[in-house]
């Protein structure tokens, strides 16, 4: 009874040199490199005007699963308008919006949520007098019969926060008003993750945070992408952009002047693209 059967054992025996391999292969977090991936979110030729003011001209934008796409641009370049189009807040005038390769038409933010697109706005939209759990489930409470199922919601909230390796929050029953800026940002992000989002858009998540908190939020953003979500990060801080992003999309006066891999550009090139719309061969044609 104590011996492995020879046939099976040989199979295990051949693994002996690679037992680390076989173990780590079981639940690999990484996709095989070099695989062509279709973008989760693919916008083409998007135009948007507010009355006589044309804000977005023929904008193309793509976000890929497992990657952080940074959206950068000067004030007034159209970042927020583009994000609001992505999130279904504004209807776009013309252009194609593909989600997982299928054209969609969004009439409201709720429709975007149903597709799995969540936006964490700069003001976070949390209720200070409610607890972390109540905030995360606000308007979408779990029920058991007629009663609200507090136990299950607490468990889900705790596992979601633990899944994001958040260790700074001690109790999920603490009111949000008692949390620091970084912790609030974490709760707002966790709320989006809870609903099986596929695309998360973060509008300036590190604005108004201290250095240590910014670092935590950046690491959280990175972990979200490593879990396979497509993350869109809006930031003015070039350093944060380079610390976490895989691609950088640059908007300049309502035009998408470049969408490049972060590994292929330098800090100076991106700053040049933001301020003048071109840098060497990148950007707007002469």
């Amino acid at each position, binding site marked *: 009874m104590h011996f492995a059967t020879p046939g099976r*054992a040989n199979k295990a025996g051949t693994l002996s040199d690679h*037992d680390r391999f076989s*173990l780590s292969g*079981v639940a690999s977090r990484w996709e095989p*490199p070099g695989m062509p991936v279709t973008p989760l979110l693919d916008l083409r030729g998007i135009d948007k005007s507010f009355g006589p003011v044309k804000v977005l001209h023929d904008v193309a934008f793509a976000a890929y699963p497992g990657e952080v796409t940074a959206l950068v641009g000067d004030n007034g370049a159209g970042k927020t308008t583009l994000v609001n189009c992505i999130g279904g807040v504004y209807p776009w005038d013309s252009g194609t919006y593909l989600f997982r390769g299928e054209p969609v038409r969004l009439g409201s933010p709720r429709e975007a949520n149903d597709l799995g697109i969540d936006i964490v706005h700069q003001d976070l939209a949390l209720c200070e007098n409610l607890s972390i759990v109540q905030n995360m489930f606000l308007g979408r409470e779990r029920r058991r019969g007629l009663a609200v199922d507090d136990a299950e919601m607490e468990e889900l909230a705790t596992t979601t926060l633990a899944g994001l390796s958040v260790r700074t929050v001690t109790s999920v029953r603490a009111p949000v008003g008692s949390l620091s800026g970084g912790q609030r940002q974490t709760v707002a992000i966790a709320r989006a993750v809870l609903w099986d989002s596929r695309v998360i858009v973060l509008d300036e998540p590190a604005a108004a945070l201290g*250095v240590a908190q910014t670092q935590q939020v*950046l690491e959280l953003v*990175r972990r979200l992408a490593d879990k396979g979500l497509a993350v869109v990060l809006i930031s003015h801080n070039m*350093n944060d952009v380079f610390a976490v992003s895989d691609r950088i999309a640059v908007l300049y006066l309502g035009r998408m002047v470049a969408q490049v891999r972060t590994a292929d550009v330098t800090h100076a090139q991106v700053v040049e693209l933001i301020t003048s719309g071109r840098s060497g061969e990148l950007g707007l044609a002469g």
Partner: protein
Amino acid sequence: MMKAGPSPEEIRRHNLGTLLRFVHLRGPSSRALLAEAMGLNRSTIMALTSDLTAAGLVREELPRGPGRRAGRPSLVVRPESTRVYVLAFDLGVDRLAVARVGLGGTILDRREAGRTRGEFDAAETVAALAGAARALMRKAGRDAVCVGSAMAFPGTVRRSDDVIRFAPNLDMRKAERGPAAEGAAGRSLEEGVALGDALSRRLGLGLPVAVCNDANLGALAEHERGIGIGCDDLIYLHGDVGFGGGIVVGGRLLGGADGYGGEIGHMVVNPGGRLCGCGSRGCLEAEVGERTLLALSGRTESSDLLGRDAIRAVVDAADRGDVQARDALHRVGDWLGRGVANLVNIFNPGMVVFGGTLRDIYLGSAAQVRSALATNALNAPRENLKLRTAELGDDATLVGAAEFAFADVLADPVEVLARLRSPEETPV
């Protein structure tokens, strides 16, 4: 070296080790999952787990929570975290840490103490570490058994006998001086310092204390328990006062001929640059290390803040608009990027992990690091490179030491445990 094939006894030992390693790294797993992952049938798994249960290494229980699947639920195999443990030591330049780590990798209990920089007194350090370890062992249950112990050390350590050969950031003159220090800890640095032997004797457990380079252990920890799970080619860079590295190639730590491999901090990036503690000029450690960053940002070493706090203060000041701090961080980040570019060209890692103080430095100068990388590394090897920060934070080296200490028991669980439970057979 062709053998007729492994004997049934060898196969069983291998299977026991593989199963225990799986439960140790992945946590509680059902028999069904184990059978699938190991490619063995369920009755073999049952035989293996009953052996491990008898040895007191795992226990089996019914799955918790409501079973949603049809059929009889598969028993869950859990590591005996509280009964089987190792002692992990971390000797940092600014801190001493000792932890009791249970099977499965949970830190059960820990003690930490600050360390003042200055002359390294081997006898005193060994006494402090042993005292803390004994306090931890007293709190363990009566039936708990210590199955190994290991220490992370900021210096180069010979693999064959765990003797310390070089530690530029600890002032080791006293350790060299001779008979004042206790026993083997007092030989000249030419011969090396056997800190592990001294600590082992002091603990009196009859167990050797393995000594290993801290950054190598950090690499091991991040590969097995941190951000690098599933990534078999990674490079871990660890910043303390000095700057070390661990290179994992094909799932294994690169040790070199004598175990000194991975001293990335002493890769020359700037010939004729700053003087390094090792005597050379322009080492990565000299261009990126704590002293350089503090000097460039106009903060002298005599200030109250040291180590991690001092580096955080520079990053913080840079973020608030201190021009000198920002320039210092940018220059350091540029050198760091060049160093990483060299590594990427040579090793083509899937991931580079920044740990220790380098986490703060990287996050504060990522634009410079990545720009230097984009300019200096070849296009193909950096294509799929991921730059990440250590998930285990300050504990990476401690966790690595624990993993290292578990290696013996995971290789041959039942044999090792039988030896430990019958002390009369213990070889001295």
